[in-house]
C-alpha cells in the first residue's frame, strides 16, 4: 500500500471510509513519507478524523509530513485554467471558470475530470510520496474513475482529450494506484461492494481493489458460562457475530479491521485505525 503513489479509499456512506483514509495517511506519515490527504466530499469527514475542524483547498500541514486539503471544484478549475491558458485578469477569469462550471454540470465526465485531474496532477508532483484520497462513495466513484476514458469518447478535439490519456494510464497502473473498498459485514454495504468489484473487473479502469471489512466484532469461544449482564452482552454479541459471519462469507475481504469500542472522537478512531493497519500490513 505504502509503495504506491495514490491510494483511493471508497465505500458506501457510513462504513468508515474517512476513518480508513485518515488511518492510511497517518500510517504513511509515521513511516516517514510525505503525504497529501485529499477530502472529496463536503461532510468534513476526513478533516474530523485528522483532528481538524475543516480543510481548505490549499494544503495545510496537519502533522509533520502530512498535509491535507479539501477538494473545491471551482478552485481546481481556476488552477487548471491558469496553468493551461495563462489568462490575464482575475475578474474575467472568474467568469470563465463559472462558464466552464456550467458546461461541466451538463456534460458527462467534464465535471469529474477537473477533480480527478487535480488529484492526478498532485500525484505527479515531487512534493508528495503518497496521495491518499477520501474518495466519493461507491455509488459515485464510477463516474470519477471512468472520467478520463469517457472524456476521450465525448470530446473529439480539444486540449482535454490529450490530457485524459495519461490520467487513464496512471489510474490503471498497478504500481502507482491502489483502490481500497471499505465495507461492513452488513447487507447493503456488501451488495454495493460486490457490484463495484464487478464493474471494476469489467472496465479495468483501476487495479483490482483491496476489500476491507470494517468494524468486525471479535469472536467468542463456546461455553463462556456467563450470567446476568454479561450473559446479555454475550447474547447480543453472539447474534451480531452470526449476522456478521453470514455477510463476511459474501464479501471475501482482504483485510479485517476490528470494531473499536468506546471511542469518543473521529481523531481517536483514526489513530487506532492506523495502528490496526500497521499491524496488518
Amino acid at each position: 500500500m505504502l509503495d504506491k503513489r495514490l491510494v483511493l479509499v471508497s465505500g458506501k456512506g457510513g462504513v468508515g471510509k474517512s476513518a480508513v483514509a485518515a488511518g492510511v495517511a497517518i500510517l504513511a506519515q509515521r513511516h516517514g513519507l510525505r503525504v497529501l490527504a485529499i477530502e472529496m466530499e463536503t461532510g468534513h469527514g476526513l478533516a474530523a478524523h485528522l483532528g481538524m475542524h475543516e480543510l481548505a483547498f490549499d494544503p495545510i500541514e496537519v502533522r509533520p509530513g502530512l498535509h491535507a486539503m479539501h477538494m473545491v471544484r471551482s478552485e481546481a478549475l481556476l488552477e487548471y485554467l491558469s496553468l493551461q491558458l495563462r489568462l490575464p485578469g482575475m475578474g474575467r477569469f472568474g467568469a470563465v471558470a463559472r462558464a466552464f462550471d456550467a458546461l461541466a454540470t451538463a456534460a458527462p465526465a467534464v465535471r469529474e475530470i477537473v477533480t480527478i485531474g487535480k488529484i492526478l496532477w498532485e500525484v505527479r508532483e515531487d512534493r508528495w510520496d503518497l496521495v491518499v484520497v477520501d474518495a466519493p462513495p461507491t455509488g459515485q466513484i464510477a463516474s470519477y474513475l471512468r472520467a478520463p476514458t469517457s472524456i476521450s469518447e465525448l470530446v473529439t478535439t480539444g486540449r482535454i482529450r490529450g490530457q485524459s490519456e495519461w490520467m487513464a494510464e496512471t489510474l490503471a497502473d498497478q504500481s502507482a494506484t491502489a483502490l481500497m473498498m471499505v465495507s461492513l459485514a452488513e447487507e447493503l454495504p456488501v451488495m454495493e461492494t460486490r457490484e463495484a468489484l464487478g464493474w471494476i473487473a469489467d472496465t479495468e479502469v483501476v487495479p483490482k481493489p483491496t476489500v476491507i471489512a470494517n468494524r468486525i466484532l471479535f469472536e467468542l469461544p463456546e461455553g463462556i458460562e456467563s450470567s446476568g449482564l454479561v450473559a446479555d452482552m454475550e447474547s447480543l454479541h453472539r447474534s451480531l457475530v452470526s449476522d456478521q459471519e453470514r455477510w463476511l462469507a459474501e464479501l471475501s475481504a482482504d483485510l479485517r479491521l476490528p470494531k473499536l469500542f468506546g471511542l469518543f472522537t473521529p481523531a481517536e478512531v483514526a489513530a487506532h485505525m492506523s495502528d490496526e493497519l500497521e499491524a496488518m500490513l
Partner: protein
Amino acid sequence: MTKTILVTGSGGVGKTTVSAALGVEAARRGVRTLVVTVDPARRLADALGIADLGDEPQPHDQEPNLWAAMLDSAGSWRAVATRHADPEVALRLADNEFFKAASEHFPASQSYAAADQAATFVQAKAWDLVIVDTPPAAGGIDFFTAPSQMADLVGGRLLRWLTGGPLPGRRFFYDRAARPMLRVADTILGSDLLERISEFLLDLRTTYDGVASRGREIERVLSEASILVVTTADPAPLAEAVRFYRQLPAIASMPDAVVFNRSLPSEWANAQTEVGMTAIQGRLVDSWAAETLRQGDAREEFASRYGANIITVPWSPSSPVDLAGLRTLAGAAEGISWEQLLPSQDQS
C-alpha cells in the same frame, strides 16, 4: 390534513429501519400510514411488502393501515421534462445525453425528484401520515434546499454563466468571436460539445415556470413537516446529526427529536470485570461497558447542547425482517411521544 414526518440522518445508521418501525406502529394505532423509502435492504423491503420495488404506494397484505412505496429518483427526474416542457421539447430532452448527465451530476436534482414524489403523496390526501425516509445524498440537508436549487438550475443560471450576462437567444452561441470565455471553452473542450450543451440548456430552460411553481409547493410541504434526525453514537454519524441540528432551523424547521439507534441498556455502563471472570468475559464486559458509557455521554451532550428531545431505539441483535420485528422495535423505543408524533385520530 396529512401529517408528514421526514426522517433524516447520515448513511448506515438505520434510518430506513426506523422509518419502517414508526410506520408499522402508527398503522397499528389506526393511523393510515404511507412509508416512502429509498433503497431498502432486501429483507426490510419484504417486511414492508414492497419486494417488487414499485414507486406506486402498495397496501401491506397483513396490516390494513399500512402502505409503502419506493422513491425512484431517476424516474421522477424524467418526469420533470414530461410534466413541465412542451411535448416536442420533452421528447428532445429525454433523448439528450446531457439530460441524463445533469441528473447524475447535479446533486439537488435527485433530492428534488425525491422531494417532488414525496410531496405528491402528501398532497394526494389519501393518508393520515406520510413518513419519508430521505435519500442520503449530499448529507441530506440537500433535500430541503433542492426545490430552489433546481429552479435555479433550469432557470438559466448555467446559461447566464455561459454568457456572462442576460439570457441569450439561440444565435448567441454562434457568435463566439465576441465571447472570449466561449473561445476558452472551445480550446479545452472542442466546439462541437459546446454547441450541443447550449442547445440542451435552452431546451431545459423552457421547464422553468413549471419547476419553479412546483418547487414552491414542495417547499411548503417540507416546511410543514416534522423532522426526526436518526443517528448512532458513533463519532462520524453523530457529527452529522450535530450539523443537522445546527443547519435545519434556518432552512426548514427545528427537528422534533434525535433518534439514537442501536442504543444499549444503560445499566451496561456500570458493568465491571469481576474476580473469577475469564479473559474473554472480561473483554466482553470492558468492550460493551465502554460502548454503553460513550452512548450515554453522547446522548447527554446532545440533549444539553441542542435542547433536543432524545428517542432511543435499542440495538436489536439482527435487523427486523417482518412486521412483528418492526413492531417490537417500535415498542422498545424510549422517549417517544406517540400522541405528539402521530396525527390525532379524530381528524381522519
